[in-house]
């Protein structure tokens, strides 16, 4: 293309040399003065100077570059506070194992406090990613290569394009190959040769890439003077056709996305309501402390993470049984201490549990402070499952959805298959008869309430992954929880599930038209009107028992 | 004020018109109450299965049948509590009960005493009767309601009849089971219905009280029609001219007590079922 071949050659050479020098890691290095200077200003300079230093580092070929730059990007590049030496640290959970950034020599372990981090700005991070991308284009891991290609494609100048072209032939991984191909095709859209352009558009039509949409959109736009940006009408029409083609797919993806959003919102609703479906639905206790039991579950997750800060993923998993046990125990305590005196007076349970909720809230405020607590999301739950440029499903929501279904199925099995479940259902249907048949109703009550509370705790673990962990957590969900249970039909677990999901999806489909607030209002009004039609919810309890 | 109120709560106009449109109670051509081919099912269980029943004006009819035969459901259908899947229920010739709800049915003249005595525990015996008293039962009229001397006398008379004069000022909650039964019968009397549906009137009563109940019911027939559901065969025998036996939601047989008792099907149902 229109770049002097010599320059291009130089660039390639430079990068190649970098790559080579990386390969030759074990070679003794003689650190050059400019390189040391660059490191020095990286260490001490102001933000703009640091930015310059990074650029300089990239130009100077040094074997340690990748390690240093990567460490810088990851926030593992420090200066020691005592002798302001530039070191790379590896977190060993008590402190850092550090090594000299210049020589690579291990310097042993130090405290967190002994180091100060070299901070970055967004701009620097962008630059770093690009530089590292170039360095990593030939990495072994295809995922790293893909990330590298994507980072480079963002600022695809000619040098980058050449690099990519070079890589395209060698690349074996289809995903990486595809990414390179799209980047190159996009370049072809600006080609002076009309045939190349047409070919590029035709080829890109089938790709799900936002970049393609942007470029096509730009082609059919008019500029300020009302002239088309793209003078060639054939190309314009072709671009229009391609856009229609892509937009159809976009629409499909966007509905899929909305359904997913709705399901995941529904999953949160179901999770927060399902414990209530037991304490309220099965036992008839208007449990205003339900939200606070969820809050306890969320705080349990926080405590678990504090106990094992090095194993985030495991701590979240372990938090599930822990939260269940803690909330269940608190639930049993509430039942034994208060609620058992109030059976047959459901409205009074509302009052007493309201008192309990105030106490639980304030306890948490006293113990953990009124501030929100930070609960980290484990690696496997963060980010999203990128299906293509137009459709990605966030992992945390996805797991919560799966988790919700698991909890539901498990609960159903407990109620259907176990002795406890049988007793629970017996007591719910006819307390006196159950008692007469020798079922220890007091124990069953405690266990049932414990079960419902425990599930609330488990829901709290899930909530800790998407929202605030603070004293107000419970209150934020209590109203919604009651709505879901009532909408589904009190005493019917399946109803709760269906209600949660349908309200979630309805909300998400309304949101684009009505906005978040109005959507919620509409859903509430819908519930009110629906209850007029079916005064006992979606799945009413049937038979004579329901009448009384 | 009144017109505004009536506009606001003018529900009873509708009620009245539904009665008036169909004309006054018309029993010239036969029974005062009839059900034809009425079926009700709950979750696939047929509580009533093509039940047909005709009650004549002034008749005292006893309905018997084993548990689950559909006796209570039958009453539920007549009083509007349960809607049948198919069939028709008429009061006289012209009043279609299926088009009306419970209060409307009660107001056109069908009264009901429940199986479980249901009186208002928080109110006094007198107030219980006062509530049942035949009167304008719209909201504003109820708010400004004052007992006339005549009405007061009538309540007194009923109190006398049911033997609760001494308890007039007591809360109904303190009454014994049998007294509550009486009170409910009293409330039924206050309504001055044309048809009285009486579900198990003598449960929890002493022998003496049973006799008085029988007397009372017998004294009412002719002037009113009565449908009595009862398990106690002796009691039924003491009052019944005509007995209907229900089984599995349909009429098994009808006739005098003797006829019915000798019917092999009835014996089969009661003993073999």
């Amino acid at each position, binding site marked *: 293309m229109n770049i002097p071949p010599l320059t291009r050659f130089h660039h390639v050479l430079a990068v190649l040399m970098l790559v080579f020098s990386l390969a030759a890691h074990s070679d003794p290095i003689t650190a050059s003065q400019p390189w040391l200077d660059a490191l020095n200003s990286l260490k001490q300079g102001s*933000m703009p100077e640091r930015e310059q230093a990074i650029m300089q580092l990239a130009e100077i070929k040094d074997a340690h570059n990748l390690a240093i730059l990567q460490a810088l990007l990851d*926030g593992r590049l420090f200066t020691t506070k005592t002798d302001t030496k530039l070191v790379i640290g590896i977190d060993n959970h008590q402190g850092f194992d550090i090594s000299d950034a210049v020589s690579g020599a291990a310097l042993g372990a130090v405290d967190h406090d002994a180091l100060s*981090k070299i*901070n*970055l*700005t*967004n*701009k620097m*991070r962008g630059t770093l*990613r690009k530089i590292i991308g170039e360095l990593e284009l030939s990495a072994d891991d295809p995922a790293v290569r893909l990330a590298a290609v994507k980072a480079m494609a963002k600022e695809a100048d000619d040098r980058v394009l050449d690099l990519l072209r070079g890589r395209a032939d060698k690349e074996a991984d289809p995903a990486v190959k595809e990414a390179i191909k799209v980047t190159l095709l996009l370049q072809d859209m600006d080609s002076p040769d009309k045939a190349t352009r047409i070919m590029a558009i035709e080829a890109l039509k089938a790709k799900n890439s*936002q*970049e393609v949409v*942007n470029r096509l*959109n*730009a082609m059919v736009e008019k500029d300020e003077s009302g002239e088309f940006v793209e003078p060639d009408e054939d190309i314009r029409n072709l671009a229009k056709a391609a856009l229609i083609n892509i937009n159809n797919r976009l629409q499909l993806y966007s509905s899929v*996305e*909305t359904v997913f*959003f709705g399901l*995941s*919102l529904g999953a*949160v609703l179901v999770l927060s309501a399902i414990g209530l479906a037991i304490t309220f639905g099965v036992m008839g206790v208007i449990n205003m402390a339900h939200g606070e039991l969820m809050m306890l579950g969320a705080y349990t997750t926080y405590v678990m993470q504090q106990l094992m800060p090095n194993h985030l993923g495991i701590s979240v998993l372990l938090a599930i049984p822990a939260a269940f046990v803690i909330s269940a125990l608190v639930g049993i305590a509430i039942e034994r201490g208060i609620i058992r005196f109030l059976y047959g007076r459901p409205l009074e349970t509302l009052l007493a549990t309201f008192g309990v909720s105030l106490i639980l*809230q*304030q306890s948490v*405020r006293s113990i953990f*402070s*009124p*501030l*929100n*607590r*930070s*609960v*980290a*999301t484990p690696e496997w739950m*963060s*980010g*999203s499952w*990128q299906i293509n440029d137009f459709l*990605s499903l*966030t*992992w*945390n*929501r996805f797991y919560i959805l799966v988790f919700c279904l698991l909890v539901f199925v498990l609960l159903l099995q407990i109620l259907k298959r176990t002795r406890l479940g049988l007793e629970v259902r017996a007591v719910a249907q006819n307390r006196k008869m159950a008692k007469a048949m020798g079922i220890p109703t007091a124990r069953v009550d405690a266990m049932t309430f414990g079960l419902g509370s425990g599930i609330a705790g488990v829901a709290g673990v899930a909530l800790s*992954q*998407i*929202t*605030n*962990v*603070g*004293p*107000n957590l419970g*209150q*934020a969900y209590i109203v919604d929880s009651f709505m879901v249970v009532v909408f589904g039909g009190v005493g019917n677990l399946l109803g709760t599930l269906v209600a949660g999901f349908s309200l979630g999806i309805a*909300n*998400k489909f309304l*949101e*684009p038209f009505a*906005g*978040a*607030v109005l959507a*919620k209002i509409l859903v509430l009004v819908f519930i009110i009107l629906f209850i007029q039609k079916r005064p006992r919810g979606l799945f009413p309890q049937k038979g004579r028992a329901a009448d009384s | 004020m009144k017109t505004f109120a009536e506009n606001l709560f003018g529900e009873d106009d509708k009620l009245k018109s539904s009665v008036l449109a169909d004309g006054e109670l018309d029993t010239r051509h036969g029974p005062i109450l009839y059900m034809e081919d009425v079926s009700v099912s709950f979750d696939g269980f047929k509580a009533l299965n093509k039940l047909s029943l005709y009650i004549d004006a002034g008749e005292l009819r006893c309905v018997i049948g084993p548990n689950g035969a559909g006796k209570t459901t039958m009453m539920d259908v007549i009083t509007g509590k349960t809607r049948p899947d198919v069939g028709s229920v008429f009061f006289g010739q012209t009043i279609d009960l299926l088009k009306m709800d419970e209060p409307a049915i009660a107001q056109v003249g069908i009264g009901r005493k429940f199986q479980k005595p249901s009186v208002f525990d928080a109110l006094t015996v007198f107030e219980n009767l006062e509530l049942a008293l035949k009167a304008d039962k719209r909201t504003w009229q109820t708010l400004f309601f004052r007992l006339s001397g005549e009405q007061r006398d009538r309540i007194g008379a009923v109190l006398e009849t049911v033997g609760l004069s001494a308890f007039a000022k007591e809360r109904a909650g303190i009454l014994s089971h049998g007294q509550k039964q009486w009170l409910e019968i009293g409330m039924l009397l206050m309504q001055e219905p044309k048809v009285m549906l009486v579900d198990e009137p003598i449960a929890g009563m002493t022998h003496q009280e049973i006799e008085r109940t029988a007397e009372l019911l017998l004294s009412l027939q002719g002037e009113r029609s009565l449908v009595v559901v009862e398990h106690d065969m002796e009691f039924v025998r003491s009052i019944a001219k005509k007995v209907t036996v229900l089984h599995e939601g349909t009429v098994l047989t009808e006739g005098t007590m003797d006829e019915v008792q000798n019917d092999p099907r009835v014996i089969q149902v009661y003993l073999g079922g």
Partner: protein
Amino acid sequence: MFNTIANKFAKKRLLAPIAAAAIGFFPAAHAEDTIKVGVLHSLSGTMAISETTLKDTMLMLIDEQNKKGGLLGKKLEAVVVDPASNWPLFAEKARELLTKDKVAAIFGCWTSVSRKSVLPVIEELNGILFYPVQYEGEESSKNVFYTGAAPNQQAIPAVDYLMNDLGVKRWVLAGTDYVYPRTTNKILEAYLKSKKVAKKDIMINYTPFGHSDWQSIVADIKKFGSTGKKTAVVSTINGDANVPFYKELGNQGVSAENIPVVAFSVGEEELSGIDTKPLVGHLAAWNYFMSVDTTKNAGFIKQWHEYIKNPKRVTNDPMEAHYIGFSMWVKAVEKAGTTDPDAVQKAIIGVESPNLTGGMAKMLPNHHISKPVLIGEIQDDGQFVTVWQTNKLIDGDAWSDYLPESKPIIADWTPPINCGNYNTKTKKCSGQNY
């Protein structure tokens, strides 16, 4: 006979607490050897999250002042009450502080609505309120001193930075639906338009308080930002809604490098409740960061950690505002030689007090103060790194110049104007309660 006894008994039983209550309402005879300072921050309810820290800050500052020998030879005494995040209760408690406890000044409020609720009471009883939170402006009361940022001390510099230094072309203005975001966004919209940003390049979105499901909105932002033009989000999202918002941003892959979010309501304390890893690089605009390296700030942080007995607690902007407000009040009282509100109100104008981040804050005639504006990027340790700051202090402007209806209005509490709402065109003072 029985009736009268029972009657008397019942009366005694019932009237006793009522009488006690009535007595309680009368101001207790209070010793004149202390100067009382009211602390009006919610300690329970939804706002406790933010406000409890400010209560502790005030207790610390008062404690410190007492160690220095108090004020005018008297000890200071903090009177702490809990308005429980209930807006009418704020007014009631303010009245209680001023009439029952006779406090010399009140430090308190966080939300605008709580300030609005308290305002008539403070004005009626001629009290003094120091309000430490950034807010929407459009107000200047004789009795209130606004030590937080006005919109021109936070929002506009932030947008300038995004536009000039990051080359942002497309703007999402996302906020919680209440008056502060509404005003800020209105000002910003006007400002952006004056900078030739087209309407289609501005997306405005409002959400309710505590909004927790951000999936659709973040997806929209992502779409809006995917057109190739550099896009940024200016967030006036309040309080609890932030955590789920940032979590969703992180999970949907909206990184600070693609679409930076600059927030006006997210400080160190809010970050301490968020897993900051996915947030690294997002921005906030404040007048104070804990990470700013000055000796004053280091001293303040040390003092705070000692007071609160937790070396992990952070400091934040509203705390600094109280720090400045309190020291200004102390200086003004010393200058006036009395805690009399009129004298203090007069004396405090022009009083200077050092910022923790350097420079001297000054109380302006419009009851706002001058402040530096800092823009910081979030780091994974929950701190901010200052990436940009104004080279001089900016004076707080009560009435925004970017809103047509308030452009001609100024506030000046010095003679001859002596008005919080003075129209320079009509030369009229309006909207005042005196």
